[in-house]
């Protein structure tokens, strides 16, 4: 785990719920021996996730990479509160996670903006539900649309946007909601390679500006190393973390680089190491 000074001074951090313990360590999300089993229709017990310990400190961009069926989405659903773990405890800022909440926003793989709202109203919806005044939320939604490069598309309907633009809008919707932890479930998985590279670069730039705590699932090793401060490699049956790798290059020279980062020998070496861990 890395401690970085610039990540502890997030200006818009949410109020800590309780537990002095987690406040000291700076962990936003803590998993203690979290595991997940379920019973299939044919009566078999599937061990989707083995006992997993994980601490995600404030402002860290954690990428989780692994083959399909390795339990990475299970892990995300537990943190999001969509799924109760069958073992262990999942905590957000010291409080046990008992369901979904606005402080843990989710960006889904499939675009799922509401087609009955305009793009801007989608981005403002979280604020609307918190009864923020209309003028204020419209203005703030516009700010976040600008941030993700959709300034001119606020009045469009979601289905009028391309897949990549819909994912941008989904990200804006989560950012605008004052989300503390952003959970992303293969958000670029359904996009073409060019759009995907463009969104990765934009998310990296965004993260350098905003220093959000991000939990990002992908099956793409290159994407994980490019975006993450830290990469977790998971293996299947039962799903468990087999490698917990800090991406140190991004803290040094790589931090100022964009696309060129991919050509650094360190980057290539890390990518190989992580790809190797997946194969085992």
């Amino acid at each position, binding site marked *: 785990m890395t401690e970085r000074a610039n990540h502890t001074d997030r200006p818009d951090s949410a109020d800590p719920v309780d537990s002095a313990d987690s406040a000291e360590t700076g962990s936003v999300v803590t998993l203690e021996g979290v595991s997940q089993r379920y019973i299939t229709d044919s009566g078999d017990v599937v061990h989707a996730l083995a006992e997993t310990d994980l601490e995600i400190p404030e402002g860290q961009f954690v990428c989780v990479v692994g083959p399909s069926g390795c339990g990475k989405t299970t892990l995300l659903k537990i943190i999001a509160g969509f799924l109760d773990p069958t073992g262990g405890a999942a905590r957000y800022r010291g409080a046990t996670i008992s369901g979904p909440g606005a402080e843990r926003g989710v960006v889904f793989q499939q675009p799922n903006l509401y087609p*009955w709202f305009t793009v801007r109203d989608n981005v403002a919806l979280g604020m609307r539900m918190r009864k923020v005044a209309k003028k204020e939320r419209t203005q703030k939604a516009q700010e976040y649309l600008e941030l993700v490069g959709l300034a001119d598309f606020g009045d469009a309907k979601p289905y009028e946007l391309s897949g990549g633009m819909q994912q941008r809008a989904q990200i804006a919707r989560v950012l605008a909601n004052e989300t503390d932890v952003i959970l992303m479930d293969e958000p670029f998985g359904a996009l073409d390679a060019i759009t995907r590279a463009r969104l990765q670069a934009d998310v990296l730039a965004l993260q350098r500006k905003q220093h959000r705590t991000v939990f990002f699932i992908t099956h793409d090793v290159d994407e994980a190393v490019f975006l993450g401060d830290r990469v977790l490699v998971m293996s299947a049956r039962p799903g468990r973390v087999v490698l917990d790798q800090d991406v140190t290059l991004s803290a040094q020279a790589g931090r100022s680089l964009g696309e060129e980062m991919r050509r650094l020998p360190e980057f290539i070496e890390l990518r190989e190491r992580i790809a190797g861990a997946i194969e085992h």
Partner: protein
Amino acid sequence: MERTRLMSDAASATPTAPAPSGTDPDGDSAHSRRVAKAARRGRSRRLRRNRLLQAGVLVVILALWWLITAIKLVDPLYLPSPQAVLGAFIDANRCLVVDESSGRSVCGVQNYYLWEHLLASLQRIGVGVSLAAIAGVGLGALMSMWEPANTALAPYLNFLRALPPLGYIGLIIVWVGIGDLSKFLLLFLAAFPPIVIATIDGVRGVREDYVSAARSMGAGSPQIARFVVLPAATASILSGVRLAIGFAWTTVVAAELNNGIPGIGGLAYISGTQLKTPLTIACIIVIGLVAVALDGCIRWVGNRLVPWHGKV
């Protein structure tokens, strides 16, 4: 399926649309807008062709009808000529002098113009379906969100749905009399089940990630119902209402068998029993045309309320 094929056709027709705007981060929205426009053009061309085909069928039917009656293939009592039907239609909408000496005249048939008969039936359908829509959406929402209600009521709903209205009209008359109330009740009962079922389908069919996304934005149950479930279920509810109006039309004749004047269904029935077949056929044609027009209205409203239908 048809739509995607059209889209891809149009896409290959305009293969290199350069995206001129620098504001579009992914570069392909201008292109996709042009593709959509080209697809719309193709669609309207196809629509015109279809209309032409349908008009052709109508012409053939009218010609055959005219031919059969013109060569007196069938007794006009069984199949009156198109001219006779048109005449009956016109006579049913005007006053005729029946006694030259006294100047006594009769207006319409059964003391009402045809359009008054039609209006009476439309009012009954309006009342029956409106009440069914209010009650049906409410019950459907309850049954889809609260499982015990569904378990308790679903079999009875299916029982009601399977009953032909003609089967129980007698019972309803015994219960509430032959006035308008029996007709409202019959139309209500006919329209109610499809609306309940469509509402249940609509609410259950809401994409799980729509609900998950709202919950992780901090939405509570009332907010999910208002911002997510209701709009997402609208398309299904509207198609239930469409279906219900169709059932109501088929039921209106049954509802108007007894004391159904004024009423277009009652008129069709009575004119048949009085062997005024031209008028019966005129009534049937009016019922059919108005039903088609009404269905078109509902579809138009649906496209207005649910413009995203078929696009997501």
